[in-house]
């Protein structure tokens, strides 16, 4: 094992390729169902996907529209003319003996996206290009034989290719997380990582710090979680530095990620790399797009994470909080609506803090928010915020009502508060009675004495007792004021 100090002498450089499955109803070149989840093998395969003789591709315009939307999310231009090419290789999961892709004139790029980190800092990643292509089928191996499932064959993809602008595993993770958000926000993909809706290939190299040249890279293919991207890069960097420290050369090769062993293993090196004999696909006319058409489609893209980050600056949230909330698009939309409808940052900030707990409770291992169950109406949420603003509710009570509102969205927060007896008492004559009973309670005599003796900290304890006795309804600020008045301190 190389020490962290040794690792520190090297600069890591990473470029990422990401395959994004597009959320179209049908496949890229056929009318077959594009959602293979839960389908039996080879059940969503048309004669076109099957590569029957005489079949011709018919380009799915919906896939083109999603690519146009992806271009907006990637802050990258859409080509006015793009074309399809054929990439040839033989493999049983590739029915036509070639993959239809865009080698020479891709539909998107080049561009730059800004990636925020939890630290509040951000960095730029250049997008070399993104192209459309079709997915291949899947093989399963059974000892003496293998089975082919072509359900996935022909699923539309865009492959996003970055420049080598990433220099740490933390940056890499931030990049893939942001890419995930951009693609799901824009509605480009269903974003189901478990089913391979987004798959990452990472190209990692190591070079002595200060060196002008990049080291020889390895490519780890087919990573399907944010964490595996982070881990694979860390593993590769360490492996390469180890070799370099021993004076050995890095072999340019393709490697796979072993999730169980948390390590990469060699799959094939450059010498075995195939000649794909790329050629233009004469069966598919070029995609020709006018600015007007591109603008019309991109206008339907909903607000993206960078918009919310900018808009929420007035909420004065910590960047980690902002990112946690943006992880869930419905949450981001909710907070934005509250901000716009209430016209006050305080209401949006309150809803953001309430919703944060819901989001955090629903975030899975891969960092994806499952279901934050927003049901409460915007108006009721604003009303709830106003009740807090006017001291009608304690913050604890407000949280309780917030949860209840999502369970029973038809009931007004005031009604829930009344039902649960949570309206804060701000009537001094009511609270003074409770204050007196606490101050006169022999079991708190020591606390009262300490406070009178000048130990200010004890006041919190006594306020707590007032709250307890009032079943949480007393306005704590008022309770504190009254205690002080009674004891004349």
């Amino acid at each position: 094992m190389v020490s962290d100090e040794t690792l520190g002498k090297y600069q890591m450089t990473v470029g990422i390729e990401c395959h994004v499955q597009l959320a179209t109803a049908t496949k890229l070149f056929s009318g077959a169902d594009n959602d293979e989840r839960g389908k039996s093998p080879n059940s969503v395969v048309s004669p076109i996907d099957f590569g029957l003789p005489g079949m011709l591709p018919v380009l799915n315009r919906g896939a083109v529209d999603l690519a146009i939307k992806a271009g907006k999310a990637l802050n990258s231009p859409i080509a006015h003319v793009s074309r399809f090419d054929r990439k040839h290789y033989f493999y049983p999961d590739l029915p036509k003996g070639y993959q239809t892709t865009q080698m020479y004139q891709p539909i998107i790029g080049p561009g730059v996206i800004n990636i925020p980190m939890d630290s509040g800092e951000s960095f730029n990643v250049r997008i070399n290009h993104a192209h459309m292509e079709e997915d291949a089928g899947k093989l399963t191996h059974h000892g003496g034989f293998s089975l082919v499932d072509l359900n996935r064959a022909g699923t539309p993809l865009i492959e996003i290719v970055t420049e080598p602008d990433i220099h740490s595993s933390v940056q890499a993770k931030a990049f893939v997380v942001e890419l995930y958000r951009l693609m799901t926000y824009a509605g480009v993909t269903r974003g189901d990582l478990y089913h391979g809706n987004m798959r990452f290939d990472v190209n990692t190299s190591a070079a002595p710090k200060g060196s002008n040249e990049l080291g020889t890279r390895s490519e780890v293919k087919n990573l399907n979680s944010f964490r595996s991207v982070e881990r694979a890069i860390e593993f590769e960097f360490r492996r390469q530095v180890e070799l370099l420290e021993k004076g050995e050369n890095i072999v340019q090769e393709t490697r796979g990620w072993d999730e169980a062993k948390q390590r990469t293993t060699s799959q094939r090196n450059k010498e075995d790399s195939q000649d794909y004999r790329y050629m233009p696909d004469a069966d598919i006319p070029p995609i020709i797009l006018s600015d007007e058409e591109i603008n019309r489609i991109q206008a339907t893209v909903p607000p993206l994470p960078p918009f919310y980050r900018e808009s929420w600056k007035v909420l004065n949230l910590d960047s980690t909080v902002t990112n946690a909330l943006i992880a869930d698009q419905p949450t981001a939309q909710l907070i934005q609506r509250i901000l716009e409808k209430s016209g006050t940052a305080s209401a949006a900030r309150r809803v953001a803090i309430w919703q944060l707990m819901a989001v955090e409770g629903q975030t899975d291992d891969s960092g994806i928010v499952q279901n934050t169950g927003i049901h409460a109406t915007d108006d009721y949420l604003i009303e709830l915020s106003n009740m807090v603003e006017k001291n009608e509710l304690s913050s604890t009570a407000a949280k309780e009502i917030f949860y209840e509102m999502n369970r029973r969205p038809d009931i007004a927060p005031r009604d829930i508060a009344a039902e649960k007896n949570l309206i804060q008492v701000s009537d001094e004559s009511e609270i003074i009675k409770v204050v007196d009973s606490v101050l006169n309670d022999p079991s708190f005599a020591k606390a009262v004495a300490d406070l009178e003796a000048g130990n200010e900290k004890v006041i919190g304890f006594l306020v707590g007792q007032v709250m307890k006795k009032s079943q949480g309804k007393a306005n704590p600020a008022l309770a504190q004021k009254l205690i002080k008045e009674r004891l004349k301190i």
Partner: protein
Amino acid sequence: MTISEILTKIKDTSARAVVENSLKLAKDNQDYHALLSLTEGRALKRADEVDSGKISGKLAGVPFVVKDNFLAFGAPTTAASKILENFDAPLQATAVEKLEAEGAICIGKANLDAFAHGGSTENSAYGPTSNAYDKTRVAGGSSGGSAVVTALGVVPFALGSDTGGSIRQPASFNGVVGVKTSYGAVSRYGVVAMASSTDVIGSFATNVSDAEMITDIISGRDKNDMTTLPDFFTVQENVKPNQKIGLVKDFMTDDVDPEVRGAVNKYVEKLKLAGHTVEEVSLPMAEYALAIYYIIVPAELCSNLARYDGVRYGRRAEGVTTLSELYGKTRDLGFVTENKRRIMIGSYVLSSGYFDAYYQQAQKARTLLINEFNKLFETYDILIGPTAPTPAFKLGENTSDPIKMYLNDIMTVPTSLAGLPAISVPAGTNQAGLPIGVQLMGPMKSDASIFALAKSMENK
């Protein structure tokens, strides 16, 4: 017989009688080996449906044959290859569907060079087809079977595909009309692909009007083929008078059989008598057309043949133990020598480092050729020349020399590369009685006006 004569006969007798007669003629002429299979059961069933009124249309009961690279019901679609020996199509080609929608009845599937690679039908994995006029000579190709059944009168028309002359050349060798439509005029859906950028679907018939009618039926935009053009074909009743016609002198050199040149010159004289002007024109890029063609077409066809791997359908090699053996042996058994030769050429010109030198250069040269055609069509309505440099040659004469075989395509390949419509019409026979064809070529989408001119010249 013409289509209208057949329709009269159906009216007088029955569709069943006509179809039965066609099937009988097919069997009587088995020694030509023009058909790979008969779709007898389905044909007779459809004939009965015509007779009972269940099926109707412009071609109700008219028998026809399709080249066996069209997906069609009733018999396997083999493309004259071993790899598709028992391949039963689950759907039919658009052209076949359109003919059936008009009541036409497919009675069989015609022989071809395997995967349409060839110009004589000698590359069929099931043996060659003989010429309708001389059994010791080739049918031409690759649509040789379709040309021969039309010439023998088995059916009034047949479908073929033309990538570099595969309809026109066998039409000229067998004395029938052969139509290469504008690229994109007829859907390629359901036809085993050879070269995607030059493949077109067309027909054989005994006269121009019939070929025109078939083109009218099978042409049109097809949502299943993105390269089809918006509908443009409509039958043109009257010929445009006083046309300016260019005789392509590059196709009339001393290398061309004198009797072929004589037949073309005779046709030119008739055109002049009909009031048209004919001038010699030059197409210098034609010299490079074959070189361009034999880069682009193998590149495209090796790609289109990559799907025949024995994994999902078709014949698979037995006793293999590795994946590469499965591919290698299956393709070795499934393809004929000419298929392999072209796959190798195609793979070579697409390889890394050669793509720019061959494929890209060929595409640039192709653009220059297209520009030359366009320039000529600024002045001329139609171009004329022979369809092939010679009448039908002897079986086996060119099989050992692929270059000599390729040279036969020299007059048909230029229009294929440019996507232009062209038809071959019978222009008499040589002294030995072998048919000669004259080729009429027009600008993009001028199919109807070529037919109009050819019709006006027929029987003159």
